[in-house]
């Protein structure tokens, strides 16, 4: 079906079939080291699945080549055959159907079934040996993240690299699905249910993902960043994240507390205890805003505050009209929450 042979990420895929050629072009055009590619895994769970994918791809390619080859050859030799030959007996026909369609297909399929079942069970068993549990709550359309030391954050999940981390997945509204392709399979967040998923990043780095179950207007902009730190960095980060907000722009804090912001957002250490939107206590330490819809720059932040619907139509965040000085102060305040 796709290109033949072992397709390494840096190697050019080989294959004589047109389809394989098309894939080759496509892979060459984009490379297969995409930011969220299932086949360039960065953790043991994703590696296990990628190790299932490649043999299945090879087998599928072989079957495709056989069937299409026989089909096209049969079509091509039709011109040379006579109607008399066509009516002749074909005693090999039914045994061929049984052999190819039932015996060979059956062996391949049952073989892959057993293989995949083993991987499924191994992945499930590995989930019993986690040391850290992080709660992730899906909201329309952002992620709430809760750490065991009481720290609450949003949209960017820090984990220690090289460590299996369990995610306890729940939702506050509709069904969402947590998926960071380079770290492992996805798991849905179902109302009234607590699902578990384990993640491990082999190396420090930032891994992208996004909600994979359709959840309404802004399903497309419900993005996740998983940041894997060295274990020491992670411990320091988590301890800092649990502390109250740092001192920041005082004028901006007044704007935050007196305008509508505090009605929806919490900043621990300030007069802001809203629970509708993300906790912003350490907002200044995040890379993006609006669940990943834009990088967290002062310009984007100002636009997000005054006109969020232009960045993320349908978001719960209402527009806020502020005097320019107040807006600047508010942006400075939020930027200082580090």
């Amino acid at each position, binding site marked *: 079906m796709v290109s033949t042979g072992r397709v390494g990420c840096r190697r050019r895929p080989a294959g004589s079939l047109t389809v394989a050629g098309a894939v080759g072009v496509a892979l060459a055009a984009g490379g297969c080291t995409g930011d969220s590619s299932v086949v360039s895994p960065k953790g043991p769970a994703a590696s296990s699945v990628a190790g299932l994918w490649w043999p299945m791809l090879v087998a599928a390619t072989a079957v495709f080549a056989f069937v299409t080859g026989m*089909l096209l050859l049969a*079509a091509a030799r039709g011109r040379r*055959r006579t109607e008399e030959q066509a009516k002749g007996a074909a005693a090999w026909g039914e045994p061929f159907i049984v052999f190819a*369609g039932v015996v060979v297909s059956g062996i391949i399929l049952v073989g892959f079934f057993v293989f995949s079942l083993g991987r499924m069970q191994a992945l499930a068993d590995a989930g019993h040996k986690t040391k850290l549990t992080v709660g992730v709550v899906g909201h329309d359309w952002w992620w709430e993240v809760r750490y065991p030391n009481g720290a609450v954050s949003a949209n960017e999940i820090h984990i220690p690299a090289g460590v299996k981390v369990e995610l306890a997945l729940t939702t506050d509204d509709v069904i969402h699905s947590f998926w960071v392709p380079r770290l492992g399979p996805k798991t849905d967040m*179902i109302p009234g249910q607590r699902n578990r998923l384990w993640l491990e990043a082999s190396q420090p780095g930032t891994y992208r993902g996004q909600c*994979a179950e359709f959840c309404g207007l802004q399903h497309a902009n419900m993005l996740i960043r998983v940041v894997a730190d060295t274990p020491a960095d992670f411990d320091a980060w988590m301890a800092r994240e649990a502390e109250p907000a740092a001192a920041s722009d005082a004028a901006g804090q007044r704007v935050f507390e007196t305008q509508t912001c505090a009605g929806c957002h919490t900043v621990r250490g300030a007069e802001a205890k809203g629970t509708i939107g993300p906790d912003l206590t350490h907002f200044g330490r995040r890379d993006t805003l609006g669940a990943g819809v834009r990088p967290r720059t002062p310009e984007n932040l100002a636009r997000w505050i005054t006109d969020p619907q232009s960045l993320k139509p349908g978001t719960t965040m209402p527009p806020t009209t502020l005097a320019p000085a107040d807006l600047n102060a508010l942006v400075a305040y939020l930027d200082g929450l580090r």
Partner: protein
Amino acid sequence: MATVITGAASPERLEEAWHETPGLGSFLTTVDHKRIGKRYLYTGLLFLVIGGIESLVMRIQLTHSNLHVVDPETYNQLFSMHGVTMMFLFATPVLSGFGNYLVPLMIGARDMAFPRLNALGYWVFLAAGLFLYSSFVVHRLPDAGWFNYTPLSDSVYTPGPNIDFYALGLIFVGISTTAGSINFIVTILKMRAPGMSLDRMPIFVWGELAMALTVVFALPALTLANVMLELERRAGFHFFAPAGGGQPLLWQHLFWIFGHPEVYLVVLPALGIASAIIPTFCRRPMIGYTYIVLAEMAIAVIGFGVWVHHMFAVGLPTIGLGFISLTSFLVVIPSGVQIFAWLATMWAGKPVLRTPMLFVIGFIILFVIGGLSGPMLAAVPLDQQVTDSYFVVAHFHYVLVGGAMFPIFAGIYFWAPKMTGRLLHEGWGKVSFWLMFVGFNALFFPMHILGLRGQPRRTYTYQAGQGWDFLNLVETIGAFVLALGILVTFVNWVWSAKRGEPAGHDPWRGESLEWATTSPPAEYNFENIPTVRSREPMWDQPELGPHGQPPEAGGRGLGGGHNTLGTSLLEAEPEVVVPMPHESPWPLLLTVALAAVFVGLLIREWVFWAVAAVATAISVAGWFWPRGETQET
């Protein structure tokens, strides 16, 4: 009775008994399976155009990252209605249309078993399609996907009437599908020409039978789910909302217990089309007839045991996932058996590459690709990676568009000459095929790669810098090439219906009975109902011609009355002469009354609703009112 069964028929008597005066009156009251079948085809293809335009708008929106051609709400409505339209208003009706037109001809009957029920089926399908699309007028198209998961689709998260159009519309269209399926089952089992025992029945007819049986067992789950959803949305029930003790996964189970068999019930008759075309163009009987028939039935049965593979990521216990994973792997085998039977037939025969055969070869290639990504999605961990990504979109479009739409187009080129009396233009047919085949692959093959590279489905846009832009551009171009190919066939069809080369009764040297009558067939199909002595009667019984079978060779005229022959279930021994109903206004009137009932439920005007319910009861009474003839259905 024996004399009636064998009594010769004269064309004049038959003409008098079966004639429907052309005009508005018979347009609204006809019960002729051929007119109804063509209506299913034309209306279904109109919905293909609508669903296709929806997909083109989506493709334009996704050509590049961060485009704003449509807003998110419009996009959600587009993909929801694209799915609903293609499954319920295009694929199922068009395949029913082929079945309606062809099954009585292929089995040597003069009409379907229940002609008025047949008419009702079409009118209800049309009314339900209009009901669903009336939501467009008020800008409230369903927007929670064709799968319509709760709680997103409940009244808390979708308070508008969007979902009510969906739920009521699907209950409504289900009446049509169920009526049609019961009709197919009875027609196929009880009205076959004498001698056409089950093991001589054309594979296409087996495909329609498998589809009809699947509908009867699968559709109640969807209807039940939608009734429960409406009760939850409108009457405060809590089947699905956890706040009231409900369970959101219940919807998913009910939906997919219907939804996965639905996929097969679209594919099964389409595979039957391929099995009808291949022997004709390979100039030999199908190798492995029995295996193909068993495979079709096996798919229909196993298809009920795989639904949870749509739910591998919802957090179910691994033991349950293992069982469904196994059935999902095994359901590939019967599809493979059919493919190898076709290959064997082509290898042993002399393939002639006319346009219908070209579409069938294209279909086999695409269906194999879709069949090979199937086991990848049956493997639980791999499915958990790529489910809800574009990989799945690629997979099921290869299975459904490759596996059903390509055979449908093969069927158009193969059987339209029977319907119009004229062949479609061969050259333009080939142009259409190549445009469709190349466009299809450019559109859907890259989706495999995008899915592997993490692009989730059902998103109205995506961010730049993820390496997704180029392949999305390729897909959009492919979509327009595919659309152009489809357009070429439509123009070809319309042009050829007037100016095409005359087809004669048997242009392809086909093997089954639909070629033993004129093109287009007379209203009564066959002057004399043939006695079948072979699986390929047109090849083995030289006495069969454009007027069926002469009485001296065993043809039965049934005295030339408005009747057809009922035969026994297994061996098709003649049992009874069945008088057939004439034109009737009641199917249409009942449909109008039923539509008013559904509108009443939608707008919650209970007086209106009560009047409509009474009108429905009156229509049913009128339908069954004794008229002094033999009781009809």
